[in-house]
């Protein structure tokens, strides 16, 4: 299977006064296309930081990241924004929806930015919401939706423009078990259709649902297991 993400010797550190805190200490990682990968680890292990580097939301101090055969370090800020728009999708822990926009409007934003006409963007956004089971909540603003519904809108927004990879940062952290299961079901369904997903989670029961589990500790990969016993 073709490799979609190739990471070599990735280092990320943060300055705190005079001292420097190294969060990622020379990570190497390769992700094939279509894989559902979970990154786990204790709090402060660097899992979210890794996701932000892979998702082009942050810049590493050193190391190489190639996504879809493109060297990310060579892209300027505008090119990275375009890359995120066209190739990546995001699901954040706190849903990250725009409060004054309806579910439909939140989902069609990236489509409009891609230059789609309003009617075409609406059609795709509706398809995406229906696909995620929110066909009857399209005109609700986020505050009129439950946490689970908001997170599913967020997933619909992430998949509407057919991204190469979806990055999900603790997507179930703010949800109850039943709603979390629904969100994970949505991811599994997408994965079955060939979607590459990289998910940060600290919940073992959800990581066990993925193809591969990468465990971080103190900025290093301490285990990288293919999950053959996937539920």
């Amino acid at each position, binding site marked *: 299977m073709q490799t979609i993400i190739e990471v070599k010797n990735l280092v990320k550190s943060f300055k705190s006064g005079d001292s420097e805190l190294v969060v990622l200490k020379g990570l190497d990682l390769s992700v094939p296309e279509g894989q559902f990968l979970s990154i786990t680890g204790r709090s402060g292990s660097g899992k979210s930081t890794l996701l*932000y580097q892979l998702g082009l*939301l*942050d810049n590493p101090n050193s190391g190489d990241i190639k996504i879809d055969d*493109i060297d990310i370090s060579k*892209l300027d800020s*505008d*090119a990275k*924004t*375009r*890359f*995120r*728009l*066209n190739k*990546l*999708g*995001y699901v*954040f822990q706190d849903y*990250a*929806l*725009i*409060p*004054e*926009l309806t579910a439909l*409007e939140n989902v069609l*934003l*990236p489509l*409009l*930015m*891609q*230059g789609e006409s309003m009617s075409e963007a609406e059609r795709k956004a509706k398809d995406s919401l229906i696909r995620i089971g929110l066909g009857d909540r399209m005109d609700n*603003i986020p505050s009129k939706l439950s946490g689970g519904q908001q997170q599913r809108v967020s997933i619909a*927004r992430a998949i509407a423009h057919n991204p190469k990879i979806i990055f999900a940062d603790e997507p179930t952290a703010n949800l109850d078990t039943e709603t979390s299961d629904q969100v994970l079901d949505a991811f599994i369904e997408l994965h079955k259709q060939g979607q590459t997903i990289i998910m940060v989670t600290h919940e073992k029961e959800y990581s066990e649902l993925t193809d591969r589990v990468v465990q971080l500790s103190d900025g290093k990969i301490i285990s990288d297991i293919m999950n053959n016993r996937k539920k």
Partner: protein
Amino acid sequence: MQISTTQKFKNFLTSIKLGFFLAYRQVRGSSIGTTALIVFIMTLTFLNLVVVRGVLVGLIQSSTDLFREKYAGDIFISTLPKKTYIENSPSIVEIVKNMPWTDVYSVRYVESGTVEGTYKERIDFTEDANIANGVFTGIDPIKEQETTDIASMIIAGSMLTPEDTDSILLGANTLKKYLPIEAPGLLLLENVDVGSTVRIKVNGNLKEVTVKGIIKGKGAFDDRVVILDSVLRPLIARNDYNVDEIAIKIKDGVDPLVVKQALITSGVGENARVQTIEEALPKFLKDIQATFNLLGNAIGSIGLVVASITIFIVIYINAITRRKFIGILKGIGINSTAIEFSYILQSILYATMGVMFGLAILYGLLVPYIDANPINFPFSDGILVAEYSNTLMRAGLLLLATIFAGYIPARIVVKQNTLDAILGR
């Protein structure tokens, strides 16, 4: 990942379209009270920009209008410097009369002199006489009435008729009753009113006359002593009919400069000074006009700065409280141009609404009201000057200032690190 210029332009258009989308949704979701307050501030700012300057300029504009309407006309012919009268006046008057553009005109003799009141009651000759200095203006009452509607300026008594050879009209500024001020060297008549007998002295000649009326029109006649030209002429020994001033009102739609040029071409310029009303305005009026214009612009500029700061603060607070959502938008691939444009559009919306309300108040209420009820200033009836071109220019300035004031804070917030904005760091 290099993109072509055409693609860049397409991306720009897409960003603008999305900016509209975001701005509309944000305004739709914002509080009506807050929006109304911002629009109210913009309305006041616009009115401040236009009205303050309009009143200041209007003060002088009305003086200028009065000077034209009630004294000098559209073209003013006067004596050349160092000459005491307009030589060859009869032929000049003939030229004026026969010009196709002349509507009406008035010919005047002007000479300084004194008016002495209550001289018959004077007992103590060690005290100063009850005297006022005055500029005697000899007129043809019918011609003058046609040209300046002089009768409308009479506040007491009545207008001179061609038979009033022993009467005068006194300008209100020669009487203490109407100008109750004390100033060194200023001589004003006391206890003189309509019906009083006064003694005039012009060119050394004395004549006893009766005050037939008092003129007060906030114009040049307020300082004059008006007398029939047929009476003044022998007193100043002007038997050659050479006059001092000719005020001409031209027909509607005629360019005063064309008339002036025609007069000069006819040789009038050799014996007299020919000026349009703008050129003939007293220097102090021109100076005040320039000063008030400057003052109006200065006050307007302060208003513009205040409006810019208001919009800056509004947009900055708006953007900073929405920093997380701006981060999310950037995170999911919405480019900076679209986000910044959405804030610029909001600024434009606030400014445009403010200008629209301001225009409605200005032309629907203030201008018609002040036209109907001029502000009563001592030296003029103040009007509100708000020419469309000037008003539109100021509206444009306000719009431009708010675009910058909206763009800068949006730019500051949009430029912040995307991840820090999303995570609220």
